[in-house]
Every structure is written in structure tokens, then in C-alpha cells.
């Protein structure tokens, strides 16, 4: 049984060390996929048939590099030229420049054809910012009409945004752009009447071929620059453990959480054991007033309920990793102090201590040379039991929102579940608890095995 515990612990340590290497970004705030995306392996099951993954259609939507122009297909008309311009909407700058040299109306299209391979709609298909157009040489008598669209081949055509430019020099940007097929998005922007798409429009209902781009109608010699012509899909499935409500990677959060649990669990336990050792040694060895006061004090703190006290202390001191370690450690030494004290008391009366004293050994020497080695075994066993308690306490405090809000920990993940009312998102709820249980269990198993070895009372009576 202890071997299993050791294996789990080693794996956890490896994960803890590797987490910042495999996920070198802030796992709490970095969006990697659609919000509340399921794990990708669910797509292998019937339930996951309608899931979609992340996909990038346009590689360089803000035209950072002239090579971006090669992605598109252009209507070739003699009087119209297409070029790359360094004048763009975002920084770094860059845009697609279209100039018409004809004084009569010209109609051109810039498109990209692609295939959408998934059986269900994406979480989001336009990533902000989307679309920006500016005109030069445009006036009310020489307007330019620009229409951005997505057409499904053999299906419906959808106009995403239309702008009729009658002036030059200012960037035209869309308002209330539909960025998703998901019902909750549509409901949130009040789709009817504010975009050109009907309330029931689902642009990507299933797999198929699409054409994406825009159409510009020039009425004279003028130029337009188009920027942020992008199309990328955030899917409804991502990664090994999916994402949370902000689209952040849950596998990254869980792996980073290993670090916090191990750190707080081990350091707080060591702190508790250190204090307990000192108190137990003093109380056990120097009986009398010191023993009496220390034990009364220990008894008093033992009676006070731990979690309410922790809650109140953290609420007053503030939530940070160091406060957590300090506070948990300060409330975990009592049981161990008692155990040490009773062991020291029984050791004190043994004859080898008397012999040592008779040969002139001082208190310090007796403590370090004779007593300490005989209580070290107790330390191991107790460590194996206080570490899971510390891990669980840290997780409980983080769950209640009293942990460090900037560090990812398993309790923090479950706090988010409570915050976003997502108890139904099983991929979000289940992994942290399993992780906490496994890590605690590994220490408990090792402790139980050690206990069976060291505690003679549990051995079977011959």
C-alpha cells in the first residue's frame, strides 16, 4: 500500500516541477479556447458528435506582413490594384489597400474559401477586433460600399457588416457584430434588429464549404484600406480537461495547482511539526510549571474550532500564500506536541537516561543524543498525516475564496465553479477533487504503512 502512495507522490512532484515548463503562461487568465469547452476526447463518444475544435482560417488577419495578401483570392480588374500598405488600424501596422483608378462604378471581391469540418457550431467565430475600413479620396459623390459576408456553399449567405463610406480619413468600425452562433451570445446582444442576421441564423450548423470575405463597390477614383480581416474559431472542445468560464486551460490550472498544494502542505506541516517538537520536548523533559502551562495552553487551542478561526484570521490578515502557510502551520502543532510529550515522558524514566546523567551529560546532550533519535520515527508517521490535513485545509480556504486569488490551486478552481454556478460542468468539477484526494491518499497510505511498522500496539497478538 505504501508503494502506491510513493508512486502517486513522485508523479505529483514531477508534475509540479514540469507545470511551468509545459504551460509557461498564467493559467488563470490566458484564454486558449471557447469558454466552458469540454475535453477533446469527448468527441470520440456519441455525446461529443456536435463538438468543434479551435481552428484558424486566416493566419495574419491584421496584415502584419505583406505575405498576408497571398491568402486571399481577388477579382482581377484592370482598373483596380491591390497592395499591402503599412498604414493599419492596429499596432504593428499593416492593411490591405485597394485602389480604383476608374471613374465608373467597379465591383470587386476579396475572398477566402475554406472547409469547416465539424458537425456542430463553434463557440465563437469572430475574434475581436474584427473589421476596420478607412477611405482615401472618398466623398459623398464618390462613396464606397463595403460588405463583409460569409457564404455557405450550396446554402445561405450571411452579411456580417455593411458600411457605406462617404468620407475619408477615419476608420470605420462595426458595432454589435455577431461573433458567435451560440444562443447565449445572441441573447446577450439582442440580435433582432441590430444586425442583419435573423434570430435563428446559425452560420455554421454542420460541416461544409464556405467563402469568407468582403465586397467593395467603388463609385470613382478612391482607395480603401481594410484591416482585421480575420476568421478563427474557438471550439466547444479543447485540450485534455477542457476550459473554464473564461476559456482558460483547466489542465494547466490543475497542474499548476499541484505546486501550491505541495508547497503549502509540506511547509505548513513542517512548521507545525517543528513547533510541536519544541513544545513537546520542553513539556516532556522539563516537567513541572513549564509542562503544566504548555499543556494547558495546548489543550485550550485544541478546543477552539480550527476552520472558523482560520477564516477569521485570513479575513483579517489578508489572503496570500505566506499567510496561508503561517496560519495553517500555527494551528497544526497541538496533536503532535502531545504525542512527543508522552513519548519523552516515558523515555525520561528509562535507565539509559539515568546512566547518561550519572556520567555527567548535560540537558542538551541528552536531548540530542538520546531522546531525539527515539522520537524521530514518530515524526515520520505524523508528517504523513498532517500533510494531507494541510493540503485539505488550503483547498478548503481557497474554495471559500480565502486563498491567494492570483495563484492557481485546486481549491481556487472549485471556487470558480461555485462563482460561475457551473456545477454541471463535470470536466471542471471532478479533476481537482480527484487530484486532492489522490495526493492526500498517497500521504495517508504511506503513513498507515509506517504506523503498522512502528506502532507495536497494532501488531497482531501472537
Amino acid at each position, binding site marked *: 500500500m505504501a508503494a502506491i502512495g510513493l508512486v502517486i507522490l513522485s508523479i505529483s512532484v514531477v508534475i509540479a516541477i514540469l507545470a511551468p515548463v509545459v504551460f509557461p503562461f498564467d493559467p488563470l487568465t490566458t484564454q486558449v479556447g471557447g469558454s466552458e469547452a469540454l475535453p477533446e476526447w469527448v468527441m470520440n463518444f456519441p455525446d461529443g458528435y456536435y463538438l468543434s475544435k479551435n481552428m484558424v482560417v486566416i493566419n495574419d488577419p491584421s496584415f502584419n506582413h505583406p505575405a498576408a495578401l497571398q491568402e486571399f483570392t481577388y477579382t482581377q480588374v484592370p482598373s483596380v490594384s491591390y497592395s499591402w500598405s503599412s498604414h493599419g488600424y492596429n499596432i504593428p501596422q499593416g492593411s490591405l489597400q485597394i485602389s480604383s483608378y476608374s471613374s465608373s462604378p467597379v465591383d470587386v471581391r476579396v475572398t477566402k474559401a475554406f472547409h469547416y469540418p465539424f458537425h456542430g457550431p463553434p463557440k465563437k467565430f469572430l475574434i475581436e477586433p474584427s473589421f476596420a475600413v478607412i477611405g482615401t479620396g472618398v466623398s459623398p459623390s464618390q462613396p464606397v460600399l463595403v460588405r463583409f459576408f460569409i457564404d455557405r456553399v450550396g446554402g445561405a449567405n450571411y452579411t456580417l457588416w455593411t458600411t457605406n463610406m462617404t468620407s475619408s480619413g477615419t476608420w470605420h468600425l462595426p458595432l454589435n457584430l455577431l461573433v458567435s452562433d451560440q444562443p447565449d451570445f445572441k441573447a446577450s446582444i439582442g440580435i433582432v434588429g441590430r444586425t442583419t442576421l435573423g434570430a435563428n441564423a446559425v452560420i455554421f450548423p454542420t460541416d461544409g464549404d464556405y467563402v469568407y470575405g468582403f465586397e467593395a463597390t467603388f463609385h470613382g477614383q478612391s482607395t480603401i484600406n481594410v484591416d482585421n480581416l480575420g476568421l478563427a474559431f474557438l471550439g466547444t472542445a479543447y485540450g485534455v480537461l477542457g476550459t473554464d468560464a473564461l476559456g482558460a486551460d483547466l489542465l494547466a490550472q490543475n497542474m499548476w495547482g499541484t505546486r501550491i498544494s505541495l508547497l503549502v502542505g509540506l511547509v505548513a506541516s513542517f512548521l507545525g511539526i517543528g513547533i510541536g517538537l519544541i513544545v513537546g520536548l520542553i513539556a516532556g523533559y522539563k516537567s513541572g510549571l513549564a509542562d503544566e502551562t504548555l499543556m*494547558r495552553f495546548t*489543550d*485550550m487551542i*485544541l*478546543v*477552539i*474550532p*480550527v*476552520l*472558523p*478561526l482560520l*477564516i*477569521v*484570521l485570513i*479575513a*483579517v*490578515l489578508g489572503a496570500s500564500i505566506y499567510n496561508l502557510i503561517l496560519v495553517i502551520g500555527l494551528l497544526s502543532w497541538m496533536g503532535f506536541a502531545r504525542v512527543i510529550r508522552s513519548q519523552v515522558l516515558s523515555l525520561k524514566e528509562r535507565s539509559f537516561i539515568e546512566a547518561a546523567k550519572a556520567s555527567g551529560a548535560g540537558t542538551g546532550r541528552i536531548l540530542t543524543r538520546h531522546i531525539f533519535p527515539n522520537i524521530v520515527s514518530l515524526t515520520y508517521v505524523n508528517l504523513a498525516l498532517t500533510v*494531507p490535513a494541510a493540503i*485539505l485545509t488550503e*483547498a*478548503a480556504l481557497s*474554495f*471559500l*475564496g*480565502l486563498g491567494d486569488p492570483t495563484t492557481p490551486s485546486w*481549491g481556487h478552481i*472549485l471556487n470558480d*465553479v*461555485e462563482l460561475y454556478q457551473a*456545477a*454541471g460542468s*463535470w470536466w471542471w*468539477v*471532478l479533476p*481537482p*477533487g480527484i487530484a*486532492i*484526494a489522490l495526493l*492526500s*491518499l498517497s500521504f*495517508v*497510505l504511506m503513513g*498507515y504503512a509506517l504506523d503498522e511498522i512502528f506502532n507495536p*500496539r*497494532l501488531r*497482531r*497478538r501472537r
Partner: protein
Amino acid sequence: MTLRGYIARRIIFTIVLVLFVIVLNWLIFEVMPGEQGALLAVQGQAKHTSAQYDFYAAQFGKNKPPLDRFVEYFTSMLTFNFGKSFQNQQPVVAQMISGGKLVNTLVLLGSSAVLSIVIGIFLGVVVSYKRKSTLDNFWVTTALTTFSLPTFWMGLSFIFIFSLSLGWFPPGGVVPSVWYENGFPNIFQQIITRAQYLFLPVLTLTLFQYGGYLLLTRATMIETLGEDYIVTARAKGLKTRTILFHHAFKNASLPIVTASALAFGALLGGAIITETVFNYPGLGRWLFDSIGYRDFPVMQAMFYILALGTIIANFAADLVYGVIDPRIKYQ
């Protein structure tokens, strides 16, 4: 030391403990800077018109000498006058008692404690007899597992499985909100519905506790079963059931009594978490809410009440221990 002397010692210890808790409670909140804390508490309301600023200033304001403040605080704690909650300006004690928070928590604690003690002890006795058997391994493993599983995760998983997926139980609360508008139904219907709302929280809290009782009972029973008088009882031809539950358990029950008292503090912690997960309107949930609102009177009151509860439980356990343990009675 006679029984009377033992009880007297315990009473003195309890009184000292209560005083210690009161002082500790005061010290913790002293860390908050007085004037700033008071301003935070009233959040922009005018100082001279706000009753809560007065209450806060009376307790925490540094303008008064500390001794006066402490004496006022001390008397208020002893008379259970906790002032008004910052959040809704209602007296704390009224909300606790007539608001039903105290009763809710007691129901939750009581039912789960009884269930986990009965189940844990019974199973512990049974598996101690069949040590190293499959039954033993199974129950020990499950006890260790629920011991390691965090309570809040179990609660959330139960919500997911039994409430959201299967729809057998409501996901939180204590009574349906429509009852407040339409009136409460008759007592039998109330019991059935309330039991539905109670089921998942009580299940979570019971699972949290029973493992400890099981393992402890098993350990003490194994120790007791190795004694000579058990062999004698066997030789006399007594039935296994009599040996187990009558002879062995009586002697093994002593550590269980002490353990259950010590576990009361942990039980309160588990109750706070369970109430938070299930939105159960009890004292634990109230403490949790008060943190977000910086509701210091409630925080102080809740810590005091919860600590008092644990102290009383400990004292009760000491009394029971004094009565059961013949070494104390007949000395």
C-alpha cells in the same frame, strides 16, 4: 481524585477557556486599524448619522482607551449582545434565532453526527473482528478515501450527479422559495420536502465524519480484542455478538467519546463548507457571507458562537468520560 473533584476541575478549565476565546476574539479584530476599519464598514455613509459606525467605533475605534473598549466588548459578549449586522442593520441575535440560522445548523450537525457515529461505530466493530478480510479492506479503503476527499468537492459532485443530472434532490437551500410567498404547507408535507432538501447536505457531512469513527473504533477494538478476558469470554462459550458489542466495545468506547468531542471542531469546519456549497442558510454560511461584506459584528459573533459550541461539546464529553471511566469514579 473523585468524580466531584474531576467535574470541578473541568468546570474551571471551561471557564478559563471561554475567557481565552473572548480575549482572542477581541485581539484578532484589534489587528484591523480602527478608524480605517470603521470607515470601510460604513462605506461612504455619514459618520454621525450611522448607527453601525457608532457600534464599530465603540468596539474598535481607537479614540477610546483600550480598557474601556475591552470592558464594553467583554460585557456584550457575556450578555450575547452582538449588535447589528452591517449588511442589513438587523440585530445579529434575532437573525440567528428567529431567522432560523441556528436551528438549521443544529439540524444539519445533529443528523449527520448521529448517522456517522452509528454507522461508523457499527462498521468499525464488525470489521475489527474480521481483520484483513475483504470486508475489512473494503471498508477501511472507503473510509480512508472519504477521509481524503475534500468535503466541498463531494458536495459539488453530489449536486452534479443527484441534483442536476438525475434530478432527485434540489441543488440547495432549506425550503422552496415559493413557501415564503404562498405560505407553508402542513407539517407532514413540510417534513417530506425538508427531508429532500436536507438529504444531500447531510449525506455529504456524514460521509465526511463516518470514516474517522470507523477507523478509530476498529483500532481500539483490535487492541481490546487482544486482551485476555476476551479469550476467557470465548472459552465460556459466549456468542460472538455478545463478546463484540457487550464486552469489548464497552472498553473501547472511551477513546471514541474523547475523539467525538475533539472532532466537533472539525465537524463545524465541515458544516461551514457544506452549508456554503449547498447554499444552506445556517451559521456557517452566514460566517462565509459576512467575510465578503466585511460584516465584523457577524464575524465576531459567529466565531464566538462556534467556539462556544465546541467548548460546550468538549465539556459534555468530559462529563460523560468522567461518568463512564471507572478509574475516575472509584478513585
